[in-house]
């Protein structure tokens, strides 16, 4: 009875090593595939332990041909990168998915995004700097801890990745400007999804959408949305920028390189608080 378990354990450790090698080499496709195999092997191992006998025939990792990469099918992280660059601000997975669906092709789901985020940090820790960019969480301005609900790109300056009290609003307004510009530049070719997204974002900004006398809202005019968002943005920008710059200075002084990307853990937070007190 221990035999299949032993074999599984061996293959699990082999797989782990292979994943590490693939990650070091920067071969994300291969690593992803190996990871799926590892999960299958671990699942089989769990079932074996639970039932004491193989419930399903253990799925041995079979050498598979590398999947064909279609030109249009970019990896999910590229999708996320593209959407974030359009917005130009940290964003929640839901917004990233909406932007992606409105302007780009290919599949991207919120659940895929969350598993992606975990992989990014792991990949960075195993070989820092192997990729041109990483997707990382935003940082809270006070504790410099990760704000996991918001995704950013590692190549952005710290000031852009830090979230102060006003930042969510300024980021929202900046992001809306980005979306409005994208809709404006595509003119008549803008997809219904893109117009809908712009309408949804603009509806909460004062004076961004013209209401007729009967209270009906018309389709959003990108130029008007940009002006309205800019007007509110002007109110918040200075205070927000000051908070972010101050926090960024503090982060550069007290955090290591990887902490500047993925945030400081809590025990460091406590120490920081103690220092400040």
């Amino acid at each position: 009875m221990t035999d299949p378990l032993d074999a599984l354990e061996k293959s699990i450790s082999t797989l782990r090593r292979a994943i590490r090698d693939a990650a070091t080499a920067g071969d994300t496709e291969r690593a992803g595939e190996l990871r799926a195999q590892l999960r299958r092997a671990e699942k089989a191992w769990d079932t074996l332990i639970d039932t004491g006998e193989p419930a399903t025939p253990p799925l041995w990792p079979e050498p598979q041909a590398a999947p064909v990469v279609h030109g249009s099918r970019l990896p999910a992280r590229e999708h996320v990168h593209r959407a974030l660059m359009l917005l130009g601000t940290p964003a929640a997975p839901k917004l990233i998915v909406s932007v992606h669906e409105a302007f780009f092709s290919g599949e991207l789901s919120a659940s895929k995004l969350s598993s992606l985020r975990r992989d990014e940090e792991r990949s960075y820790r195993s070989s820092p700097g192997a990729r041109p960019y990483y997707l990382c969480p935003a940082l809270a301005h006070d504790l410099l801890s990760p704000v996991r609900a918001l995704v950013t790109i590692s190549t952005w300056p710290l000031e852009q990745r830090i979230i102060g009290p006003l930042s969510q609003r300024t980021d929202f307004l900046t992001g809306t400007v980005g979306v409005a510009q994208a809709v404006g530049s595509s003119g008549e070719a803008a997809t219904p999804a893109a117009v809908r997204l712009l309408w949804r974002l603009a509806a909460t900004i004062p004076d961004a959408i013209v209401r007729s006398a009967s209270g009906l809202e018309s389709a959003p005019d990108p130029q008007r949305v940009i002006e309205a968002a800019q007007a509110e943005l002007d109110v918040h920008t200075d205070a927000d920028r000051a908070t972010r710059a101050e926090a960024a200075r503090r982060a550069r002084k007290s955090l290591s390189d990887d902490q500047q990307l993925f945030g400081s853990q809590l025990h460091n937070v406590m120490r920081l608080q103690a220092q400040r007190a």
Partner: protein
Amino acid sequence: MNAPVDDRLTALRGSAQRRAYNARSLAALENNPRCTLRALLDASGSDKAAIAEHAGYPSAFGQSTFALARGNAFEALVKANGYAELLRVLRETLGLTVPEVGNRDLNDVGGDSRQEIRHTHTTRLLVKAAQGSGDSTLYDHPMLRLTVGGYAVFLEPDLVAFRADDRFYIVEIKSFPIIDGQADPVQVKSATTQACAYVIALRDMLRQAGIDPEAAVSDQIVLVAPKDFTNRPTAAFVDARKQVAALTRQLARLERIKDLVELLPEGLTFDLAPDGGQAQRPVEELTDALDQVDATYRPDCLNHCEMAFYCRARAREDASLDILGPEAREQFGGVDTATMVMGLARGELTPTADQSEMAIALRHAARLRAELDQAYRGAA
């Protein structure tokens, strides 16, 4: 609370783990303060759901998972994109000005979501805001603490908004609709009762920091809910002054539990004698114990108390008028059971002095009914 009372309460609970009050049991306190059984079970921290189930009346109580998911989805929608929708409705109702958009997420402190730590963090930020040196308007899921009957209870409102006029407003986000400016009164009442506990807890916190609590925390609750048949949020003020006062009074009267405990027979316990997760206590023994304590059943108990089905069955057995609800109950002042009502109506019982008026009314009603009955039968 003094030690002997505490010991008695612990004995009532038995071997089970103590359950803390939560926003819902606090709401029950305000809704049905007269119920001795509920008061004792809550004060002793007994697991009402487990007791009701063992007594043979499992409550389908607890929120449906669908309702929970719907509530959470609506809250997420309201708070999405940097509180965009919420800011829109608060600008319309509270009159927030454009610069008032700062927000703090108090769901965790640097990834640590332990209640004590969140509470300390919340206190620091909210007190700072009340003193005028805060940097935010919206405080998302602050962790408040309220001392109920000597025990600390942690409470977590959906959001607290701090307005530039130096007032805090509790914001409750609920997923039942406000249609044409009207919402289901039962739902609104339960939402405001919950929010009252938050108002009291927040006032407590500020009082300890030396800030005038009544001035700093509004007793107007901001209710955010879907507008009409859409998913777009709208907001309305709900006046909770009366409910805040009522709950404050009930909390102060929790000390009264001492008097209740003293009336109980020695050795009474609601212990289920669990063994390996299974309750071992004979059901009759448990129901006997429960029967020794008065329960005041009201139909709206079904909305908030796990014991409601048990109490309803008991009230039916006793032919008590309680099941008809307070509206009917109040009509029959001095008469407690349906058998007595019928007896008086038929003239089979001799009314006591204070029942005589009621008896005349009942006999009159019976006569009218008999006449109608006859007329109807004659016609048919």
